[in-house]
Protein backbone atom coordinates (compact mmCIF):
# COMPACT_ATOMS: atom_id res chain seq x y z
CA UNK A 1 0.00 0.00 0.00
CA UNK A 2 1.31 3.43 -0.93
CA UNK A 3 1.88 6.02 1.78
CA UNK A 4 1.86 9.57 0.60
CA UNK A 5 3.33 12.88 1.67
CA UNK A 6 3.02 14.88 4.81
CA UNK A 7 -0.07 16.72 5.95
CA UNK A 8 0.50 20.17 7.37
CA UNK A 9 -1.72 21.49 10.10
CA UNK A 10 -2.48 25.06 11.08
CA UNK A 11 -4.15 26.32 14.26
CA UNK A 12 -7.89 26.49 13.65
CA UNK A 13 -8.32 29.83 15.37
CA UNK A 14 -5.74 31.52 13.17
CA UNK A 15 -7.45 30.33 10.01
CA UNK A 16 -10.91 31.18 11.25
CA UNK A 17 -9.96 34.80 11.86
CA UNK A 18 -8.77 35.46 8.32
CA UNK A 19 -11.24 33.27 6.51
CA UNK A 20 -14.45 34.79 7.83
CA UNK A 21 -13.55 37.87 5.82
CA UNK A 22 -12.88 35.73 2.77
CA UNK A 23 -16.21 33.96 3.04
CA UNK A 24 -18.14 37.17 2.57
CA UNK A 25 -16.69 37.63 -0.90
CA UNK A 26 -18.37 34.56 -2.38
CA UNK A 27 -21.97 35.67 -2.56
CA UNK A 28 -21.97 34.78 -6.26
CA UNK A 29 -21.71 31.07 -5.44
CA UNK A 30 -24.79 29.01 -4.54
CA UNK A 31 -25.39 28.76 -0.79
CA UNK A 32 -25.17 24.96 -0.61
CA UNK A 33 -21.62 25.10 -1.95
CA UNK A 34 -20.53 27.85 0.44
CA UNK A 35 -21.94 26.04 3.45
CA UNK A 36 -20.23 22.70 2.77
CA UNK A 37 -17.08 22.14 4.76
CA UNK A 38 -14.56 19.34 4.74
CA UNK A 39 -15.03 16.24 6.88
CA UNK A 40 -11.27 16.17 7.41
CA UNK A 41 -10.94 18.72 10.17
CA UNK A 42 -8.07 16.84 11.77
CA UNK A 43 -4.88 15.83 10.03
CA UNK A 44 -4.92 12.39 11.64
CA UNK A 45 -8.20 11.64 9.85
CA UNK A 46 -6.79 12.73 6.52
CA UNK A 47 -3.56 10.81 7.13
CA UNK A 48 -5.35 7.59 7.93
CA UNK A 49 -7.42 7.94 4.79
CA UNK A 50 -4.33 8.68 2.66
CA UNK A 51 -2.68 5.54 3.95
CA UNK A 52 -5.19 3.42 2.11
CA UNK A 53 -6.04 5.55 -0.92
CA UNK A 54 -3.49 6.16 -3.66
CA UNK A 55 -3.60 9.65 -5.12
CA UNK A 56 -0.37 9.88 -7.12
CA UNK A 57 -0.02 8.13 -10.46
CA UNK A 58 2.44 5.24 -10.66
CA UNK A 59 5.95 6.32 -11.55
CA UNK A 60 5.40 9.93 -10.43
CA UNK A 61 7.26 11.44 -7.47
CA UNK A 62 5.07 12.06 -4.43
CA UNK A 63 7.01 15.32 -4.05
CA UNK A 64 5.02 17.13 -6.74
CA UNK A 65 2.36 18.16 -4.24
CA UNK A 66 1.77 18.33 -0.53
CA UNK A 67 -1.61 17.49 0.90
CA UNK A 68 -3.24 19.66 3.48
CA UNK A 69 -6.47 19.42 5.31
CA UNK A 70 -8.70 22.45 4.85
CA UNK A 71 -9.95 24.61 7.70
CA UNK A 72 -13.48 24.55 9.04
CA UNK A 73 -14.35 27.60 6.98
CA UNK A 74 -12.60 26.90 3.69
CA UNK A 75 -14.99 26.11 0.92
CA UNK A 76 -14.14 24.52 -2.42
CA UNK A 77 -15.25 27.69 -4.18
CA UNK A 78 -12.66 29.83 -2.38
CA UNK A 79 -9.80 31.12 -4.47
CA UNK A 80 -6.08 31.43 -3.78
CA UNK A 81 -6.70 34.41 -1.43
CA UNK A 82 -3.17 35.69 -1.81
CA UNK A 83 -1.56 32.38 -0.81
CA UNK A 84 2.13 32.35 -1.64
CA UNK A 85 2.02 28.75 -2.85
CA UNK A 86 -0.49 27.64 -5.46
CA UNK A 87 -3.05 25.03 -4.50
CA UNK A 88 -6.32 23.53 -5.63
CA UNK A 89 -9.03 21.57 -3.86
CA UNK A 90 -10.03 17.99 -4.65
CA UNK A 91 -12.83 15.79 -3.32
CA UNK A 92 -11.90 12.48 -1.71
CA UNK A 93 -14.29 10.65 -4.03
CA UNK A 94 -12.09 11.71 -6.97
CA UNK A 95 -9.47 9.30 -5.65
CA UNK A 96 -11.47 6.70 -3.76
CA UNK A 97 -14.36 6.08 -6.15
CA UNK A 98 -13.36 7.54 -9.48
CA UNK A 99 -9.70 6.49 -9.32
CA UNK A 100 -8.39 9.87 -10.41
CA UNK A 101 -4.63 10.15 -9.90
CA UNK A 102 -2.34 13.16 -9.82
CA UNK A 103 -1.01 14.72 -11.89
CA UNK A 104 -4.14 15.02 -13.99
CA UNK A 105 -3.53 13.93 -17.57
CA UNK A 106 -3.74 16.19 -20.63
CA UNK A 107 -7.25 14.98 -21.49
CA UNK A 108 -8.64 15.83 -18.05
CA UNK A 109 -6.86 19.15 -17.85
CA UNK A 110 -8.05 19.92 -21.38
CA UNK A 111 -11.70 19.38 -20.39
CA UNK A 112 -11.30 21.58 -17.30
CA UNK A 113 -9.63 24.26 -19.37
CA UNK A 114 -12.26 24.11 -22.13
CA UNK A 115 -14.97 24.50 -19.50
CA UNK A 116 -12.93 27.14 -17.63
CA UNK A 117 -13.48 25.45 -14.28
CA UNK A 118 -11.49 24.19 -11.31
CA UNK A 119 -11.57 20.42 -10.51
CA UNK A 120 -14.12 20.79 -7.69
CA UNK A 121 -16.44 22.90 -9.86
CA UNK A 122 -17.31 19.90 -12.06
CA UNK A 123 -19.83 17.55 -10.45
CA UNK A 124 -18.24 14.19 -9.50
CA UNK A 125 -20.79 12.31 -11.64
CA UNK A 126 -19.45 14.22 -14.62
CA UNK A 127 -15.90 13.30 -13.61
CA UNK A 128 -17.08 9.69 -13.91
CA UNK A 129 -17.98 10.32 -17.56
CA UNK A 130 -14.44 11.59 -18.16
CA UNK A 131 -12.87 8.53 -16.55
CA UNK A 132 -15.11 6.15 -18.49
CA UNK A 133 -14.53 8.02 -21.76
CA UNK A 134 -10.78 7.66 -21.34
CA UNK A 135 -11.03 3.89 -20.82
CA UNK A 136 -13.31 3.54 -23.80
CA UNK A 137 -10.97 5.53 -26.06
CA UNK A 138 -7.90 3.65 -24.91
CA UNK A 139 -9.58 0.33 -25.57
CA UNK A 140 -10.28 1.46 -29.12
CA UNK A 141 -6.74 2.77 -29.64
CA UNK A 142 -8.08 6.31 -29.82
CA UNK A 143 -6.51 9.35 -28.20
CA UNK A 144 -9.12 10.75 -25.76
CA UNK A 145 -9.63 14.38 -26.67
CA UNK A 146 -11.45 17.07 -24.68
CA UNK A 147 -13.56 18.33 -27.56
CA UNK A 148 -14.58 14.87 -28.76
CA UNK A 149 -15.71 14.20 -25.18
CA UNK A 150 -17.62 17.48 -24.84
CA UNK A 151 -19.40 16.83 -28.13
CA UNK A 152 -21.58 14.30 -26.28
CA UNK A 153 -22.69 16.71 -23.53
CA UNK A 154 -24.44 19.92 -22.66
CA UNK A 155 -23.34 21.89 -19.60
CA UNK A 156 -25.84 22.80 -16.87
CA UNK A 157 -26.76 25.01 -15.18
CA UNK A 158 -25.98 28.45 -16.54
CA UNK A 159 -26.92 30.16 -13.27
CA UNK A 160 -26.52 30.12 -10.32
CA UNK A 161 -22.87 29.25 -9.84
CA UNK A 162 -22.95 25.75 -8.47
CA UNK A 163 -21.48 22.41 -9.49
CA UNK A 164 -21.34 22.23 -13.25
CA UNK A 165 -22.89 19.08 -14.65
CA UNK A 166 -22.46 17.46 -18.01
CA UNK A 167 -25.80 16.28 -19.31
CA UNK A 168 -25.75 13.80 -22.14
CA UNK A 169 -27.80 14.48 -25.22
CA UNK A 170 -30.20 11.47 -25.42
CA UNK A 171 -29.83 10.93 -29.16
CA UNK A 172 -26.04 10.65 -29.09
CA UNK A 173 -25.40 9.45 -25.55
CA UNK A 174 -22.89 6.59 -25.35
CA UNK A 175 -22.30 6.40 -21.58
CA UNK A 176 -25.02 5.85 -19.01
CA UNK A 177 -25.26 7.91 -15.82
CA UNK A 178 -22.91 7.05 -12.95
CA UNK A 179 -25.13 5.90 -10.12
Amino acid at each position, binding site marked *: METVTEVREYPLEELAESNWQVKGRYGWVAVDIRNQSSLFLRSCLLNSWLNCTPIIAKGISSGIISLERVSAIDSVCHGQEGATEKFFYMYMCHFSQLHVRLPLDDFTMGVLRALNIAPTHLHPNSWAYMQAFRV*LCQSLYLQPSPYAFLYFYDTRPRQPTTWLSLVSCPSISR*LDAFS
Partner: protein
Amino acid sequence: MVKEEGKSYFLKFPFSWTGIPSRYKDMGTDELLAVDKEVVEVLMKFSDNLPTKGLVRVYNSVHLIIDIEGICLLLKLC
Protein backbone atom coordinates in the same frame (compact mmCIF):
# COMPACT_ATOMS: atom_id res chain seq x y z
CA MET B 1 -0.45 22.55 -2.40
CA VAL B 2 1.58 22.37 -5.60
CA LYS B 3 5.27 22.08 -4.84
CA GLU B 4 8.12 23.45 -6.92
CA GLU B 5 8.78 20.00 -8.36
CA GLY B 6 5.17 19.67 -9.48
CA LYS B 7 4.59 23.08 -11.05
CA SER B 8 5.04 21.89 -14.61
CA TYR B 9 2.36 19.22 -14.07
CA PHE B 10 -0.42 21.53 -12.97
CA LEU B 11 -0.36 24.58 -15.20
CA LYS B 12 -3.17 23.85 -17.55
CA PHE B 13 -6.44 24.33 -15.70
CA PRO B 14 -8.03 26.92 -13.37
CA PHE B 15 -7.18 26.33 -9.71
CA SER B 16 -10.14 28.34 -8.42
CA TRP B 17 -13.84 28.54 -9.15
CA THR B 18 -14.79 31.01 -11.85
CA GLY B 19 -18.12 32.75 -12.22
CA ILE B 20 -18.02 32.17 -15.95
CA PRO B 21 -17.72 28.52 -16.94
CA SER B 22 -17.75 28.05 -20.70
CA ARG B 23 -20.95 26.65 -22.08
CA TYR B 24 -21.20 23.67 -24.39
CA LYS B 25 -24.49 22.84 -26.03
CA ASP B 26 -25.44 21.13 -29.26
CA MET B 27 -21.97 21.25 -30.72
CA GLY B 28 -22.03 20.14 -34.35
CA THR B 29 -19.49 17.69 -35.74
CA ASP B 30 -18.50 20.31 -38.30
CA GLU B 31 -17.14 22.40 -35.41
CA LEU B 32 -14.70 19.65 -34.46
CA LEU B 33 -11.14 19.23 -35.64
CA ALA B 34 -10.59 16.21 -37.89
CA VAL B 35 -8.84 14.30 -35.10
CA ASP B 36 -11.73 14.90 -32.66
CA LYS B 37 -14.29 14.08 -35.34
CA GLU B 38 -12.67 10.70 -35.90
CA VAL B 39 -13.04 9.85 -32.19
CA VAL B 40 -16.70 10.91 -32.22
CA GLU B 41 -17.43 8.90 -35.37
CA VAL B 42 -15.93 5.72 -33.91
CA LEU B 43 -17.88 6.09 -30.66
CA MET B 44 -21.11 6.79 -32.56
CA LYS B 45 -20.88 3.27 -33.99
CA PHE B 46 -21.89 1.89 -30.60
CA SER B 47 -25.62 1.40 -30.59
CA ASP B 48 -26.13 1.11 -26.83
CA ASN B 49 -25.14 3.13 -23.81
CA LEU B 50 -22.09 1.72 -22.08
CA PRO B 51 -21.94 1.36 -18.30
CA THR B 52 -20.01 4.31 -16.89
CA LYS B 53 -19.53 2.70 -13.50
CA GLY B 54 -18.19 -0.50 -15.01
CA LEU B 55 -15.71 1.40 -17.17
CA VAL B 56 -14.47 3.42 -14.17
CA ARG B 57 -13.92 0.15 -12.28
CA VAL B 58 -12.05 -1.31 -15.22
CA TYR B 59 -9.82 1.75 -15.21
CA ASN B 60 -8.81 0.97 -11.66
CA SER B 61 -8.32 -2.74 -12.11
CA VAL B 62 -6.49 -2.88 -15.42
CA HIS B 63 -3.39 -0.90 -16.20
CA LEU B 64 -2.71 -2.25 -19.65
CA ILE B 65 -5.93 -2.37 -21.57
CA ILE B 66 -5.60 -4.55 -24.60
CA ASP B 67 -8.60 -3.75 -26.76
CA ILE B 68 -12.35 -3.31 -26.83
CA GLU B 69 -13.01 -7.06 -26.70
CA GLY B 70 -11.11 -7.23 -23.43
CA ILE B 71 -13.16 -4.33 -22.11
CA CYS B 72 -16.45 -6.00 -23.08
CA LEU B 73 -15.37 -9.19 -21.33
CA LEU B 74 -14.37 -7.28 -18.19
CA LEU B 75 -17.64 -5.36 -18.16
CA LYS B 76 -19.55 -8.63 -18.29
CA LEU B 77 -17.56 -9.84 -15.31
CA CYS B 78 -18.08 -6.65 -13.27
